[in-house]
């Protein structure tokens, strides 16, 4: 059942031997040892597992890995910072606003915000709430997250 699949993750090509039905999340965390996308529900309800597929934030927990071969640019939290380690403006804004407690949902928030700002660089508050809608946060730092996205967007 396993097959050779080639994935483009954070700018690098990886060829892996896998069950093509494996959800992308498991491949990123276990085969590529990435920590960014988190397991939260496996049901596409909480957003902990968000990744960028090209520029679109998408939950990776139910997405069969074979659907994202063929050059789809998969970006995880690890792939956002510049090569010299400089944080992406959205990452930096979350640090500056201290918009985390346990931080487990940060991945989903940051990935969703990056996606939002690529499509709408100057979102208003309602657009930010909408852009982060898929992400659940139980520590309830959402008010800070909204400020962080505003800071990153300069609005």
């Amino acid at each position, binding site marked *: 059942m396993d097959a050779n699949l080639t994935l483009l993750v954070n700018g690098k090509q990886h060829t892996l031997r896998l069950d093509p039905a494996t959800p992308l999340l498991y491949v990123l965390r276990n085969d590529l040892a990435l920590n960014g996308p988190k397991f939260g529900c496996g049901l596409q309800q909480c957003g902990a597992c968000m990744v960028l597929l090209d520029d679109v934030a998408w939950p990776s927990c139910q997405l069969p890995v074979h659907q994202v071969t063929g050059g789809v640019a998969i970006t995880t939290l690890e792939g956002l910072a510049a090569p010299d380690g400089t944080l992406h403006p959205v990452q930096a804004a979350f640090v500056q606003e*201290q918009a985390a407690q346990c931080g487990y949902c940060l991945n989903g928030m940051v990935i969703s915000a990056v996606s939002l700002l690529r499509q709408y660089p100057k979102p208003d508050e309602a657009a930010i*709430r909408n852009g982060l809608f898929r992400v659940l946060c139980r520590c309830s730092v959402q008010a800070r997250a909204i400020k962080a996205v505003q800071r990153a967007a300069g609005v």
Partner: protein
Amino acid sequence: MSHHSAPTASRRDFLKGVGCLTVGFVMFGAGPLAAASAGPELPGSLQDNPRINAWLEVLADGRVRVLTGKIEIGQGIRTAVAQIAAEELDMPLERVEVVLAETGRTPDERYTAGSASIEQSAMSVRYAAAAARQKLLILAAAQFRTTPGRLTLRDGAVHASSGRQLSFAQLLGGQQLTDEVRLPLPLKPKANYRYVGRSIPRDDIERMVRAESYYVQDLRFPGMVHARILRPPSYEGRLASFDTKALQKAVPGVLQVVIDGSFVGLLAEREYDAKLAQDYGRLHARWSGGRKLPADKPLAEHLRSLPAVEKRTTDKGNVDALATDATLRASYFKPYLMHGSIGPSCAVALFAKDTLHVWTHSQGVYPLRDSLAKLLKINPDNVHVKGVPGSGCYGHNGADDVAADAALLARAVPGRHVRVQWSREDEHAWEPYGSAMLFDMAARLDPKTGQITHWQHELWSDTHSTRPAGSPEKLLAAQYLAEPLLPKPEDDFSGGIYRNSEPYYDFPAVRVDTHYVQGPLRVSALRSLGAFGNVFALECFMEELAVKSGQDPYEFRLRHLTDERAKAVIRKVRDMVRTEKLAPREGLGVAFARYKNKAAYCAVVAKVAIAPEEDGATVRVRKIWSAIDAGEVINPDGLRNQTEGGLIQAASWTLNEEVLFNAQQVTTRQWEQYPIFRFDEVPLVEVAVLDRPTELPLGAGEAAQGPTAAALANAVFHACGKRVRQLPIRPEKLLA
């Protein structure tokens, strides 16, 4: 990856000969330049672990390592204790490292719970560091042939006025400070603080946004096995049959199936195969029995009908007049609530060379060690438990249970690390919920003065704490083994049931009757325990009395309080909303509590807007304000962050949340069935911190929960005239 080693020579007691240290200073007044004296007694954690080197070690490179028995659960304890240690030792903050809870390594501080991380752990570090400072000064004075008073600490060294200096490590010659910390003990004058009282950013947030390995879920060991657990459809369900050969055929990646009674572990090399095995098992395993749940009548009625163990937990004055002369009576209800951690519980365990190693996000590594030792019938010395942060827990969730799962499975594959990941459904259906509660309130007002003369609060609740606490039978897996360990029924009134049921107000006659009942669902500690429900009932009832007697809600509360700090938070929050304008069907509501009647003071005002009835009467929380007094504040932004989170989380509990069940099982098994606040529902929040630098720091992480619920219910009443006494405040309860 993380490893473990026996305590090294650096911790041997070389300096014992110097004797116990007590340096007394005569202090004059409490002016800003006078050294602040330590409180009248040492924090309990320090009394239990009295040696300096239990709390801090001097490293060879000049850094200081702080050891805390608490775990990081999002409250920022790592940064707070680093601030405290750096302050007392006049060290640069970046040269202080912090080690979190680990058996055999850090002090035993039992559980990271009850908003006690600052009161206990951070204050222990403060006194230990202050004692270390004095000892280092004495050692340096001997070297420099001078007196301690002529020396200063700076950047990890003791400096003489001559310019000579010796680093802490040089002074100790590779040894550690093993003296016991004793009072009296001079502390650094607060006027000279550089770090404490400042909003030092948490450095772990950058690690999180960089996706560095941080969580227990991120641990990866060579040859690690992945596992899922198959649980019955109902509480107490028993495994009737499970064809493991058919499973192996359907999911060839399954490595091993461990069955012990009705405890079923599914192990695989690849995590996805473990998940597939769990999916298969849920469809094909057959179960029998199972406890029937009381789904045939409203839960509030059911609670009232249960046999109860009763205790009068407050009895002041005589409330008999209420029997005939109550001004108002009302009943309130709070349903079962979920912790709802975003990351389901996870643990890694390894059984190697007769020793069990466990990596866990449990709130209590030492109690868990003892529980696991009894579960596996091994010596606690052969159990090593290391705390690693997980997803925020807000109390006792599945953390200890999943650690037990991992321990049982690790024994089946010795020499290999076993990582157990609970599914979303495992966590939603099996975590120990916050208890449902029922309240009957009665009070009498003096018709002339409008003052409350009599107050009665009667409550029905299950316990609010079933932490394992060193016993094995409260670990979920233990109850399903072939030789099950079952928790004994207990009439435990210590578990937070009546927390905050005694009013902080000054009423002449008060009676609280607590009815301990055993409810249908598995329960344990959820943020603030009974205080959430008790404050909800108490502060709603206060508001109802104010409304009934035509009094201003703020003034009504103020005139029943004597504690000026309590009055100050209420006045502050009133000031914060003074200029708020209200549209039709908008309302403001206030509530107040001092958490546990001895921790932080918190007043909350909520502003809600209610859609017209024809549009479904949905409640939108526009904004929540809070004023909080937590005494001396170590990190104001940390306190603000905790309080903001408490306000929003409690608003979600109040408006949205309720664990539901049918006769067979809990039916709220995923987020769609248990909808917590999403981004579109979250209110703006504004928190004012009343800093009291000369007061003791007070536990604050749970202070906002109760007042938020009552403030929202009161705001809903003022917005639409409907008094909802049964949580959650769903729109259907606002329709005529």
